[in-house]
């Protein structure tokens, strides 16, 4: 189980001694794997087990039912749209927060994290009050697919901002200055210097936002109207299955949702690996 000591030493040149390093590694590895097992692996294994309780045939019947497929397509489409929107607007937000100076910047910086603190069901309620039939600003999008996107944008806003911001802060401005002194325009500087540096951060943020958007229920359940085939997302479909006493069906759809999300997250991770390969070379 233990890594070869020379590799371990090469990894951590500052380790006090080989023995100490190895004991430490074994201990931390043990703690981490136990923790992950209890918190993530066992529950997911139980979920997969539950989804297979009534046999593979029933599993397939549930996940291929027209209503489940419609919900899954809607969920993935909205999650992808929200992630892409976040990629752009989240990066812009991070840029403004790092590069621009304006009064109240510290306040805006703190506001970014608020969606995390608010119970998402309250977010749903607030959005209905603001952008619903009795909207004080005259915008009524509640109970539509747009509303689902809006609610998910709200809860996923912090991810890209918070993954791009530290990278931007660490970014060496001299590289940009050098490029400019060599005659590069702003667009070229951004495209050739800034973007390659922050792209891995954007990808991490997008992956987090996507995963969250796929699984979110609280913010969506009130504002979507839950019309089957039209505004019903997978998480709500799963909840309806549970409420009807069909927990195996609920687990089956959840497993498919997890599988697709996992594949997409792996793909994003692979892309991140590719764009950062020069750092490891």
């Amino acid at each position, binding site marked *: 189980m233990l890594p070869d000591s020379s590799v371990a030493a090469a990894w951590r040149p500052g380790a006090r001694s080989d023995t100490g390093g190895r004991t430490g590694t074994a201990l931390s590895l043990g703690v981490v794997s136990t923790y992950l097992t209890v918190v993530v692996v066992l529950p997911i294994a139980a979920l997969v087990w539950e989804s297979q309780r009534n046999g593979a045939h029933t599993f397939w019947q549930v996940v291929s039912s027209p209503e489940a497929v419609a919900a899954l397509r809607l969920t993935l489409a909205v999650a992808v749209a929200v992630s892409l929107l976040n990629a752009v607007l989240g990066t812009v937000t991070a840029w403004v927060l790092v590069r621009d100076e304006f009064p109240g910047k510290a306040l805006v910086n703190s506001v970014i994290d608020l969606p995390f603190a608010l119970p998402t069901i309250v977010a749903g309620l*607030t959005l209905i009050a603001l952008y619903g039939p009795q909207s004080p600003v005259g915008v009524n999008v509640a109970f539509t697919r747009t509303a689902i996107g809006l609610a998910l944008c709200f809860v996923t806003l912090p991810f890209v901002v918070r993954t791009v911001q530290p990278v931007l802060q660490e970014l060496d401005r001299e590289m940009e200055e050098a490029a400019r002194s060599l005659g590069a325009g702003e667009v070229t500087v951004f495209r050739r210097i800034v973007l390659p540096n922050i792209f891995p951060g954007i990808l991490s943020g997008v992956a987090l936002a996507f995963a969250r958007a796929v699984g979110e229920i609280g913010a969506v359940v009130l504002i979507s109207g839950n019309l*089957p*085939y039209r505004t019903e997302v997978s998480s709500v479909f799963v*909840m309806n299955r549970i409420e*009807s006493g069909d927990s195996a069906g609920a687990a089956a759809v959840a497993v498919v949702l997890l599988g697709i999300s996992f594949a997409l997250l792996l793909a994003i991770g692979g892309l991140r690996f590719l764009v950062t390969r020069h750092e490891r070379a």
Partner: protein
Amino acid sequence: MRRSLLLVLVLTCLGLAAASAASARRDGTTLKLVAYSTPKPVIGQIISAWQKTSAGHGVSFTQSYGASGSQARAIVAGQPADIAFLSTGLDINSLVGAGLVSPTWQKASHGGIVADSVVAFVVRGGNPKHIHNWSDLIKPGVQVVTPNPFSSGSAKWNILAAYGAERKLGKTDKQATAFVQQLFRHVVSQDSSGSNATNTFLAGKGDVLLTYESEAYAALAAGKDIHMVIPKQTMLIELPMVPTNTPLSETQQFISFCQSAPAQTIFAENGYRPVLTSVLKQPALKKWRLAYQGGSRLIFKIKDPLFGGWAKANKIWFDPTSGRMLAIEQAVGGPSGAAG
């Protein structure tokens, strides 16, 4: 909005305080009541009335309120409960299935029911769309709000009421089912629970909300600009309260108290139809007697041969893999039906 958020916060704090106060009093027996969400205020009044009697003196309560189906599942999963007060006999049957409630619970006094309600229409103030009967719900341009039948007990009552009303008007099984499908073409929101559907309607969505008469009275009492219509044919909503298989003498005494005149009066004053109808003869309850017994209405029950009881009705209509509502939802919202 900010005011209602504040209200939620205050209520939560009060709830926590009340819960801790209730659990702090350990001088006598504690009964664990697990109930569906809407009767919380009325049950609170009944409990304090009971605690003033000799039988209830010194008995304290822990109270848990939530969506009926979720509460039933929680009890099955091991949440301690002495008394279950749920919104459908179907949820009680799931406790029977788990061996927690006697299979003969309907043999108890009043069939195990402590209060009734009926399926009602809630419309906007002044009834601008002139909604009076079931057929008015499918007029062009009428938008209906009802919860999702696969997650909400309230939605199940609504659908069976719509079907039953058509049958009572002489329609065939096929015609009445087609009516339900047509009704669902007018449904603009299928919230996860009855109370969420009420909130959606009160937030301004739709022309008609299908809900319990008792819920409508609660919204009216809160001063909302709405109007209630009880259709000529509607369904009786029977609310069961049962002891779970833990033999405490106080459990049965409390349930009996709920069916006695003092508690039935409290139910009647809060918009619930009493099962002990004699309490409506009290002069002070004249307004409620007229509300509950006035007009000539045809009110049918789940035991009606049209439905054959909860187990059968649920299988036919709401089975998550084969129920009629699956096909109706698909016909209405699916790729082929979206245009219709």
